[in-house]
C-alpha cells in the first residue's frame, strides 16, 4: 500500500509539472504560468507537516529542474521548494484552520519560492533578468497562484488526506479533518 501511495504521489507531481508547461502555456500571462507543483508542496505542508513537505518539495523541484524545457542549473527549483515546504510546514498551525489562510500561505510560499529561484539565478549568473523584470515576473506568478489556490487547495487537501496511511503514526500529524 505504501508503494501505491508513493506512485500516486509521484503521479501527482508529474501531472502538476506537465500541466504547468504544456496546458498552461496557452493561458500564460507574458509567459508566466501558475506554479502548480509549488501549490502541491504547500498543501502537502499544511496537511502533513514540514518533514513530508520537504521531501515532496525536493522531488517536485528536481523533476521541474530536469524535465525537458528546463535549461537551468539543476537543483535550483529543488532548493526553493525544500525551503517553501519547510517554512509552510512550520506555519501550518495557523494555515490549516481554513481554506482562506491556506490560500494566503500558498501566496506567501509562491513569493518565497519564486524569489529564491530568482536569487539563486543571480548568484550563479544563470539566466537572470534585470531586477525590475524579475519583480514583475514574481508578482505575476504570486497573483496566478492566489487565483488558482482557492480552487486547488480543497481538492488537493482531499486527495492528500485520502493518501494518508490509515492510523498514521506520524507525530507530525497535528491537523485532523473534522467532517
Amino acid at each position, binding site marked *: 500500500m505504501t508503494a501505491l501511495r508513493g506512485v500516486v504521489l509521484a503521479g501527482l507531481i508529474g501531472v502538476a509539472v506537465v500541466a504547468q508547461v504544456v496546458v498552461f502555456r496557452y493561458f500564460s500571462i507574458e*509567459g508566466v504560468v501558475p506554479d502548480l507543483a509549488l501549490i502541491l508542496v504547500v498543501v502537502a505542508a499544511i496537511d502533513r507537516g514540514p518533514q513530508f513537505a520537504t521531501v515532496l518539495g525536493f522531488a517536485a523541484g*528536481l523533476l521541474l529542474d530536469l524535465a525537458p524545457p528546463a535549461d537551468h542549473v539543476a*537543483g*535550483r527549483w529543488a532548493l526553493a521548494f525544500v525551503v517553501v515546504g519547510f517554512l509552510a510546514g512550520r506555519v501550518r498551525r495557523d494555515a490549516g484552520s*481554513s*481554506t482562506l489562510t491556506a490560500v494566503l500561505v500558498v501566496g506567501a510560499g509562491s513569493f518565497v519560492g519564486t524569489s529564491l*529561484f530568482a536569487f539563486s539565478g543571480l548568484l550563479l549568473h544563470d*539566466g537572470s533578468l534585470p531586477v525590475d523584470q524579475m519583480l514583475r515576473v514574481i508578482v505575476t506568478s504570486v497573483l496566478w497562484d492566489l487565483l488558482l489556490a482557492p480552487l486547488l487547495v480543497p481538492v488537493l487537501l482531499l486527495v492528500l488526506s485520502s493518501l494518508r496511511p490509515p492510523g498514521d503514526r506520524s507525530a507530525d500529524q497535528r491537523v485532523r*479533518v473534522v467532517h
Partner: protein
Amino acid sequence: MARAWGAPGRRPRSPRPGDPSPDQRARRVFAVLVLACLTLITLDARSGAGSPLDPVRAVVGNVMGPAESATAGAFRPFTDLGDALRTNHKLRGDMARLEADNARLRAQASTAPVDRKRLAELDGLTRTVADTGYSLVAARVVAMGPEQSFSRTVTIDAGTSSGVRKDMTVLDNDGLVGRVVSATHSTATVLLIVDTGSVVGGRLGTNLEIGFLRGRGAVGNDGRLALDLVDDSVVPSRDDVVVTWGSKDGVPYVAGIPIGRVESVVSSPRQSSRLAIIKPFVDFTALDVVGVVVPKGTTGDRPVLTAGAPQ
C-alpha cells in the same frame, strides 16, 4: 472544510528516551535536503558543458518528453480550433516564401554599395546554400518553460529518432526561433533567441554589417533583441531587416534566416557604441509548427522537407 486541532505533540506510541522529536526530525530532513540541493547545484554549475547530471537529464527527458507530447496531443483539439490547417503543405509554402525572402535580401544586398569581393563571397555562400538547400524536419512545440524559470526554452516533439541533434537551427514561417540545446529520443529542447543566454550572429539586410544579437528575456509583445554591431560607426536604419550571419557548417545557426526588424537605435553617451533594438518576426508566445534545419540526406521517422520539391 471545517478543521480542528488535535492535541499538539501527542504520539500514540510512547516516545523512547533519546528519540528525536518530530520538529527535530523535520529539521534534520530539511538540512539534509538543502545540502543535497546545494551539492546538485555545485555539480551542475561547476562542470560546464559535460555535466555529470546529463545522463539523469536524458532519463527524465525520455520519460517526461513523451508525456508532454501526449498531453499536448490530447489538448490539441481545443487549442487548434483557431487554425486547424497547419500542415506540411503549408510549411512547404512557408519554405517557398522564405526562399523568396532570401532572394529579395540578396537583391537588396547587390544594390547596396558594398565591397565587391565580400559580395562575391556572400554570393558564393548563398549559392552553396541554394545548392545544398536547407532540409527541414517539421515539429510541433509541445511545452514551454515557465517565465518563472527566467530561461526561455520550449520542448518540440521531434528528437534524435528524427535526426534532430544538439546545435541545430530552429525556424518557423516567420523567421529564426532558436537552436536545439539538448535532444532525447523523441523530444528536443530549444533555446529561444529571446533568452538572455542566447547570442546570435546577425547581419543587417541593407549594408551587410555584422553584429551580435542578445535576447532580453521577455517573450510577450515586448520581447526584443539587442543588436550590437561590430563596426561602431554604422547607424542601423529603422525597419532594416536583420538576418542570421551563419556559423561554420551551420552550427548552431545557418545563414540567411530572417530574425527581425530594427525598431529603434539607442546610443549610450558613455560608450561610443550603438545598440539597435530588434523586434523579432517570430511571435514567441504563439509558437506551434517549427522546422529544424537538418543536414541534407537526413533520414528519420518523419518526412524531411527539402528546399525544392518534397523528397
